[in-house]
């Protein structure tokens, strides 16, 4: 691994819903300007980890450090200002607003109107499809186009870190390739991408690093090719833990 400081660090993070604890002391170091894919069986706590990072779920104990600063339990708005953008699973658009206005809402955290307009133009140049449909209702976009809209909206803030949860769900293989290409492009421009993906193989192929979660704990943190080659991965998905986990109360 290179010697660069990690951009995002989780240190023994516990979080969950109500009586359920999902993150059982999750620990991670996310390298800057790289794509890291989080994989693991269902219920391992991948989405929960994103929510905890983005301040949507209280961190019960442990710390989350971003860019050298403790961001545990900061509200989303502060995290946006710090340079983190979160693109959740599923459809996250305002269906009745136009494509342009959907984009614009990604820039609420910016105060200057002119700057927002400029950045919208820039994003639209980058994604001509959005330019074409700028004044249509967002609900008229196809699933993949909506996902691109979401990503584009996230880019409006010029984030340092993008958290993107299962972007490929419900997309055609062609669309998935497009979305992944966009993520690679981001990484090449210095943006750090943290990705959750069901489609582990394909995601790891575009990633620099992989992180394997199980039972809310980090099992493997390594370079992507290394994980791809690891025979234990299939086993992880199809039963049998990686390590025999200690008792969790």
């Amino acid at each position, binding site marked *: 691994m290179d010697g660069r400081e990690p951009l995002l660090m989780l240190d023994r993070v516990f979080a969950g819903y*109500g*009586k*359920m604890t*999902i993150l059982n002391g999750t620990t991670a170091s996310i390298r800057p300007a790289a794509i890291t894919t989080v994989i693991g*069986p*269902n*219920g391992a706590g991948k989405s929960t980890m994103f929510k905890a990072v983005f301040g949507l779920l209280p961190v019960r104990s442990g710390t989350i450090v971003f860019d050298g600063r403790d961001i545990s339990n900061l509200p989303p708005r502060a995290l946006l200002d710090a340079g983190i953008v979160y693109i959740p699973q599923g459809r996250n658009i305002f269906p009745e607003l136009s494509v342009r206005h959907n984009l614009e809402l990604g820039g609420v955290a910016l105060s200057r109107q002119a700057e927002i307009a400029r950045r919208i133009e820039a994003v639209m140049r980058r994604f001509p499809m959005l330019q074409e449909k700028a004044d249509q209702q967002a609900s008229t976009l196809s699933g993949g186009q909506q996902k691109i809209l979401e990503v584009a909206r996230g880019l409006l803030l010029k984030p340092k870190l993008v958290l993107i949860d*299962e972007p490929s*769900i*419900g997309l055609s*293989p062609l669309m998935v390739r497009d979305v992944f290409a966009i993520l690679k492009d981001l990484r090449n421009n210095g943006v750090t991408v943290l990705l959750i*993906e*069901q*489609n*582990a*193989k*394909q*995601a790891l192929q575009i990633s620099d690093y992989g992180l394997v979660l199980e*039972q809310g704990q980090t099992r493997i943190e390594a370079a992507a090719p290394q994980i791809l080659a690891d025979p234990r*991965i*299939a086993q992880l*998905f*199809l*039963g*049998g*833990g990686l390590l025999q*986990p200690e*008792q*969790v*109360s």
Partner: protein
Amino acid sequence: MNPVLQVADLRKSFGGIAAVDGVSFQVDEGEILGIIGPNGSGKSTLFNCVLGQLTPSSGEVRVDGRRTTGMRPCDLNRLGVSRTFQLLQVFPQLSVRDNLILAGQEHQGSMVSRLFGRADAGLGEGADRMLDFFRLSHFAAQPAGSLSYGQQKLLDAAMAFMAGPRLVLLDEPAGGVNLTMLSHLRERLQAYHAERKATFVVIEHQMEFVMALCTRVLVLAEGRIIAEGAPAAVRRNPVVIEAYLGH
């Protein structure tokens, strides 16, 4: 052996997208069938169609040879089909014991006899035995909401057995349950199965749990059955690995 559940060419689409796309299978008496598959493969939709929560677009469901497609969930339950839920679904304000009695009372007598009959609908002893069986006796009088997550999962399973069902559909019984509780739950399910010769269908992500419990496994991907067989065989099946890990 008699098939308890028969599903024939079941389809269900939402807005043109087929979530379940022509699934057929059957479950024989005394079997424990596991259904696995990656996220979004249509497992829950399949369950909901079988249980009457959703009306299938086409195809049919039979229980003990009787066509049940389109039946209301409550009528299905009274035919002997019961279920557990993926997320916690007990009645938190009722006591643990009342939760169990509730789960059986509608199988006793009529509306009128339930009003004028005994408060526990004659199920008190049955409930106590069930509490014993699932080691919940200690909490009998407590509101179900005060139980820990895993205990509530146990209670959820116990409720499914209260009416002595023909067929139990378990929807992710292990989800969110810690390991100690998990082995306890598995052990209890197995014990119940052995004792009553019950028929189970289990949806589960926790593979270890599935592999240990089930006698046969179906693998669902993109709304279709892509593999079927004994747990160990399914696990080695390259098609299954592919489905889980992507292309």
